């Protein structure tokens, strides 16, 4: 019999017992939808966590002077900043960069004192790279760094300092209050003290940052530390994924005897491991799902075959070759799979889409040192969806092999015996 006939028969047989077919499709479709949803969820979580880490303050990559990262020694800094920055301007992969000085110091108010990490930043450049500007809750962000020299006109802006709300609480200060910053100068450690006024209070929703970071103008940072260079240049690339592409030229140009450029994975390896674990557990979930679907399917096919024992018996008796019966059953499974695929795909895609817009809120918890202060938006990856759907289809067809073989090997006389 031709393929055409077999396939027509297969299609018709499926709908003979609509209820069973529907239930089977339901089973497979739900399994598929669950897998698609999980995949989108894990991708969403990964993307969100990466986004939170790199966009909040870290950047996709950072450049330091070789040796700086070992102990954050303020004596080890990038000296020829101008040359480096103009070099960065000419690399198209780099979307934005922000030079920073970084040192520990003490902040003193009239009520209290506290230790903090003091960052000297270029207001404009930093706003392009990190979320500091958006995190301002009270007061203002640092004013534009048009002229960062110490002419009297800019005196008022150059003593601006931004602190987190937890730190402001600890020091019992508010906007406009005095803060004396004390830190050790580089190369010698003589004390440097300057008066600042709280010009803005930020809230990152990350206890570490809100409690122990303070930001001043880059020029101030440099002059207080007595250095002409910077400790760190944070980079934002055109696409965050590019940070993982180690074949890009920029890694070679920016890594030499003086400079060390690392991407976010190398800067915070803990995050990387958690993300790996998530993809691992997704794999396990998929396998379990496949097994369940396969079993349910085999069961269902057998049911359908039993029901039609009589019919198969007759078919075989009138000369249908076993192989044809085999293919017929297989095709039935295939069509069921196809239909389930459709339903499952639509269901899964809809659910994922819904959550990709509304997101899942995990706020309050912290994983790998990253506060999940943004909701997780699911990410639909069409390729992954296609792969998963096809796998389910394949499993469906594979599960039909055993029942199909059974049907093909039926003895007509046995099959036609009507069981009550």
């Amino acid at each position, binding site marked *: 019999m031709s393929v055409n006939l077999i396939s027509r028969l297969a299609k018709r047989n499926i709908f003979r017992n609509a209820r*069973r077919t529907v239930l089977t499709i339901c089973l497979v479709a739900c399994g598929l939808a669950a897998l698609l949803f999980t995949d989108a969820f894990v991708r969403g979580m990964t993307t969100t966590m990466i986004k939170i880490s790199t966009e909040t303050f870290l950047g996709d990559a950072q450049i330091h002077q070789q040796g700086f990262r070992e102990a954050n020694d303020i004596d080890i800094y990038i000296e020829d900043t101008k040359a480096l920055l103009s070099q960065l301007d000419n690399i198209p992969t780099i979307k934005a960069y922000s030079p920073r000085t970084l040192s520990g110091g003490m902040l003193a108010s009239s009520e209290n004192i506290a230790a903090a990490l003091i960052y000297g930043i270029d207001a404009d450049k930093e706003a392009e790279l990190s979320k500091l500007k958006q995190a301002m809750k009270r007061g203002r962000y640092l004013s534009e760094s048009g002229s960062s020299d110490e002419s009297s006109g800019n005196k008022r802006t150059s003593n601006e300092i931004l602190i987190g709300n937890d730190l402001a609480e600890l020091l019992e200060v508010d906007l406009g209050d005095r803060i004396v910053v004390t830190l050790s100068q580089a190369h010698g450690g003589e004390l440097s003290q300057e008066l600042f006024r709280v010009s803005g209070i930020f809230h990152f929703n990350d206890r570490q940052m809100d409690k122990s970071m303070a930001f001043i103008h880059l020029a101030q940072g440099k002059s207080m530390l007595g250095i002409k260079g910077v400790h760190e240049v944070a980079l934002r690339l055109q696409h965050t994924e590019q940070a993982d592409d180690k074949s890009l030229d920029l890694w070679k140009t920016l890594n030499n005897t003086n400079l060390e450029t690392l991407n976010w994975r190398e800067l915070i390896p803990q995050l990387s491991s958690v993300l790996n674990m998530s993809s691992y557990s997704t794999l396990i979930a998929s396998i379990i799902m496949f097994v369940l679907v396969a079993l*349910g399917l085999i069961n269902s096919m057998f049911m359908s075959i039993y029901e039609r024992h009589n019919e198969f018996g007759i078919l075989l008796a009138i000369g249908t070759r076993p192989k044809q019966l085999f293919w017929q059953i297989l095709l039935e499974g295939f069509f069921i799979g196809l239909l389930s695929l459709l339903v499952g795909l639509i269901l899964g895609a809809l659910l994922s889409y819904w959550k990709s817009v509304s997101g899942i809120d995990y706020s309050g918890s912290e994983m790998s040192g990253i506060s999940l202060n943004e909701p997780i938006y699911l990410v639909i990856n069409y390729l992954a969806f296609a792969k998963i759907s096809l796998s389910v289809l394949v499993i469906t067809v594979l599960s039909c092999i055993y029942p199909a073989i059974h049907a093909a090997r039926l003895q007509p006389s046995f099959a036609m015996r009507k069981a009550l």
Partner: protein
Amino acid sequence: MLVIKLALRNILRNRRRSILTILSMGSGYILLSFMLAMSEGSYNNIIDIFTRDHTGHVQIHQGNYLQRPSLYKTIDNVDSLMADLEKHRLVTAVAPRIYGPSLAYGKNKTFPANVIGIDPLLEAETTYLKDKVKQGSYLSSSMTRNGYFPAMIGKALAINLHLNIGDELILISQGIDGSIANDVYEIVAIVGGSESYERMNVYLSLDAIRQFLSMGNQVHELAVSLTHQSDARSFANQLAMEWSQSNDAKSELSIDPWQVVEYAFFNSMQADKQGNYISMGILIFIVSIGVLNTVLMGILERTREFGVLKAIGTRPFAVFRLIMLESFFLAIASCLFGFIFALPANYWLTHVGITFPEPIDMGGILFESMLGEITLFSMGLPALVVIGSTLLVSLIPGIRAARISPLQALQAT
């Protein structure tokens, strides 16, 4: 009883169908129990490792030391307190600690350091500190050969101060009586990595730090380790109630389970667990559909049979009862079957586990493999699910079969 005999015979009549059904439901059971064991186990495993890192299961402090630490908030009369605690049947070890943030001075650099006074032996029983000694030898309460008190320092501190085993470490702080605390110690070990919890810590013996800070029989913290971390909450509550009744200083003490001490970690565990429950819910749902499919088919297929039964006078309720019993026996059989296979699988998971290709860092501690745990829950719940869903699913077809008219039934194909 006749019904039971009939039910059993019906099941055995169509071997293949019954076996397939049992196989299908049984696999659902196995998978479910496996997943439960894995999630229970991995959580408990992670919590265990985390709490043994340095927290302990329950911590005791003076007043609100946990929220606002201060050198002066001490637990006095420590020895008698510890003796009391150690007698408790749930307590496996108690580690006392003194915290004195100080300035550490190495060859010619200064750095702030967290100086912690410990009882080396008790600490080793309560936490993994001893296993974290990367270089040198673990702390002891006696002096070194050169007549100094020994000290262990964290990796980052060692790097920052350019210090090594055998070097002198100078600590400066303020004593509890206001005096200027200053002393020299000999470094005998470097603990942990540059990212771990210990990295800015200095560990001294209790005697050494008491001398340093001019303290007496006092400590800041008692870390208690219990037989099982899940007892933490109830133990803490019970102890708090007991001690708040007493008339002495004990009533001023705060007793917190690890869930409170490390609430950020606890929150993320809970969030993760919730996510897991959702996936398990989906799994259960799918298993139920499979059961539905199977049972429904079985019943519908025998419509003619039921028609004949009714035609010869079987009461509707009897038909219903028969169907339910068959389903019930099938479910039980599936669970038994599942149990036989699930047990060794879970056993393997518990003792060998799945090793990660790369160790995972959670809250500063590395996990290398995922272990399972066999509990009543992990073995019992799947049985409940299978049996429950089977019975549920059999209700409607059972009722329908009971009410069918013999004529209609016999006309069905």
